């Protein structure tokens, strides 16, 4: 213990030098970064979770899908109508950023992407909070931006007359309205319904929408319990007991990723899933991972026609094969959604009529109200004044055998006009007033 705890002078000098160097090189990088992007490439910023609990099930599969699709776009190996090289002839270059850290940090990173790295467009955002925070900034900076996954119904109602911000997926309302329709069609006799949701906005919104829809569609059903464990809690023993004491027939859950898989495995072992059927609105991301852990008959959703719910067409067939060849597993819904957003970008660029690099205005006006082909079939940008995709919602039942692997049975689809509120309607009011103008045939 004899020696001094104070750093020696040479150590201080060394660190002083190192600090100065670090600051200096930071400055140089800053200038290097602000040099304008090359003219023959189109630079897109990709923002998705690379750390934390959402990275495994969503962020990384999405980033991997982007890798696969961007490679194919640049090589021109996509099926028609996307079989041209690049986007509008430009090579696509990507910058990947971690979405972790909360909305304030994401606003900062978004500005860095646009203003320092000079990306031409941004695709990203799994978290609804990030979408809400970034969308006004995208409008302010006039940058073409596609939200590929976030599900909050508040996004467009809170964004006044959007011009540059798009969402190529459905919002969470559709998931839960669709879920209620599926129950009504396949299990008209159930009376006791319970829920378990992660304790944050997504879980609360999902349960609200689901409850309201059930009151409209199956007024006889009673809500016996709703558990709200914390996100990433991992262990649900107590919640499962509480659900068991309430004896539900259906357990609705909007939990996602590892939480959802862990809940299913634990509830299965505890026998809860013998007593009740689970309805998992994001269950598709576990489709290839449950193995025998989810009982046959568990109801899965995929947030639209994504992942295992992708319809058969050239694009989805190509995508499934290319993705599996490159990453070893079939694509789940976050992968499909990322692919769809990139295809939307390619569509908008190819059809912008621009010479060389399309401007943000050209991209935005081309994608607005457009109809394009995607891995999920034909996508119509028909909601939110042409800024959000209108797509059908799918649900199906999970069956597994160790010989043939997992499969979906009893799949039902509900048209976009059936599960999404028309423009100008608040989602919850729309459900409460009995789905006016919904077209469910």
């Amino acid at each position, binding site marked *: *213990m004899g020696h001094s*705890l104070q750093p020696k002078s040479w150590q201080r000098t060394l660190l002083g030098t190192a600090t100065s160097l670090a600051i200096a090189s930071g400055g140089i990088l800053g200038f290097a970064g602000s040099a304008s992007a090359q003219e023959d490439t189109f630079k897109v910023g990709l923002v998705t979770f*690379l*750390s*934390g*609990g959402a*990275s*495994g*099930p969503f*962020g*990384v599969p999405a980033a991997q899908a982007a890798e696969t699709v961007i490679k194919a776009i640049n090589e021109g190996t996509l099926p028609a109508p996307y079989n041209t090289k690049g986007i509008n002839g430009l090579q696509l270059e990507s910058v990947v950023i971690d979405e972790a850290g909360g909305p304030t940090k994401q606003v900062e990173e978004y500005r860095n992407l646009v203003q320092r790295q000079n990306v031409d467009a941004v695709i990203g955002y799994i978290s609804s909070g990030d979408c809400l925070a970034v969308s006004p900034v995208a409008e302010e900076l006039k940058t073409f931006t596609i939200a590929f996954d976030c599900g909050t119904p508040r996004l467009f109602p809170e964004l006044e007359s959007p011009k540059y911000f798009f969402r190529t997926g459905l919002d969470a309302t559709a998931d839960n309205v669709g879920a209620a329709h599926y129950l009504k069609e396949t299990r008209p006799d159930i009376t006791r319904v319970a829920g378990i949701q992660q*304790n944050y906005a997504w879980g609360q919104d999902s349960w609200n929408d689901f409850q309201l829809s059930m009151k409209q569609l199956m007024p006889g059903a009673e809500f016996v*319990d*709703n*558990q*709200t*464990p*914390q996100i*990433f*809690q*991992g*262990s649900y*023993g*107590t*919640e499962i*007991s*509480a659900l*068991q*004491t309430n*004896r539900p027939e259906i357990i609705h859950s909007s939990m996602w*990723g*590892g*939480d959802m*898989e*862990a809940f299913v*495995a*634990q509830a*299965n*072992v*505890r*026998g*809860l899933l013998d*007593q009740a059927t689970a309805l998992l609105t994001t269950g598709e991301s576990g489709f290839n*991972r449950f193995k025998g*852990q989810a009982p046959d008959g568990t109801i899965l959703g995929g947030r639209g026609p994504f992942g295992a719910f992708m319809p058969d067409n050239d694009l989805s067939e190509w995508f499934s094969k290319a993705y599996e060849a490159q990453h070893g597993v079939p694509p789940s819904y976050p992968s499909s959604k990322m692919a769809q957003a990139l295809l939307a970008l390619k569509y908008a660029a190819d059809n912008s009529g621009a010479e060389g690099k399309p401007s943000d205005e050209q991209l935005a006006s081309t994608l607005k109200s457009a109809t394009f082909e995607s891995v999920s079939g034909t996508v119509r940008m028909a909601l939110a004044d042409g800024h959000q995709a209108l797509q059908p919602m799918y649900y199906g039942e999970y069956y597994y055998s160790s010989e043939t692997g997992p499969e979906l049975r009893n799949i039902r689809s509900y048209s976009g006009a059936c599960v999404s509120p028309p423009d100008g309607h608040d989602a919850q009011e729309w459900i409460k007033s009995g789905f006016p103008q919904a077209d469910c045939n």
Partner: protein
Amino acid sequence: MLTIWAILIDGLIYASWLFLVAAGLTVIYGVMRILNMAHGSLYALGAYASASSIGWYYANGGDQLWIAFALLAGCAIVIGAIAGLIMERGVLRLMYGRDEVLMLIVTFALLLILEDLMKLAWGTTPYFAYQPYAALGRFNFGVLSVSGYQIMVIGVSVVVGAILWFWLERTRTGKILRSIIHDREVSEAMGVNVRRMFTMTFVIGAGLGAIAGGFTAPIISVVPGIGVEVIVVAFAVVVTGGLGSITGAAIGALIVGLARAASIHTMPQLELFIIYAVMASVLIFRPNGLFGQATARKI
């Protein structure tokens, strides 16, 4: 009545898990006065080690449950102890004598580093090692059921607690450690090799964190970030019980476990607050936690 039984059982199950997670934290604090924020990362490390070894074993045709358990515990302990040794020898050793709170930040830095290292080693895809959990089945009580695995975790927790107690109260090393806890300077003056004791304590504490993770792995899906989630909970338990006290950790775990179970069964909306509410109210009445002792300044 059903609910009361459920609260007791669930509370006990959760408490046993809390105790496993908190034991290493409180041992390290008691002896070294380091509140180890990287404890959660050691937990995650243990979970990854156990999940990947069990996954490997079953993927290669293994079907012996006891081998799976041996792998689970063995891999977790070994990797936790190695990580603990590297952390103590490589980093903490350079910092001894610094402020207690500065040490907290040092371990925070270790947490950040470990989180990314684990991501580099294991990727971000969730690991699932459900086989041991599924294999132990369940016990049914009417509509209620309890998983056999969770009962086993209660057992593990009791055994770990008993071993720790015996080690601290009945062995020579334990006596030395208690003398360090009581007065470090005096023990040092009496010829105790405090540094060696520190290394040993940290390795054991790290191993305990990893065991907690190892036994949790079959229940949950092991993903990046699980370590960060458990730290605050473990801290709350340890502070409630009184830092550095094994008995305190056990009682703190029971209180928090039962309070949480009661809230989930009766008022699920309050679950988010319950741990902090318990900690704050205990500290208001017992500023050093239930079994903590105030240290007076020598004048």
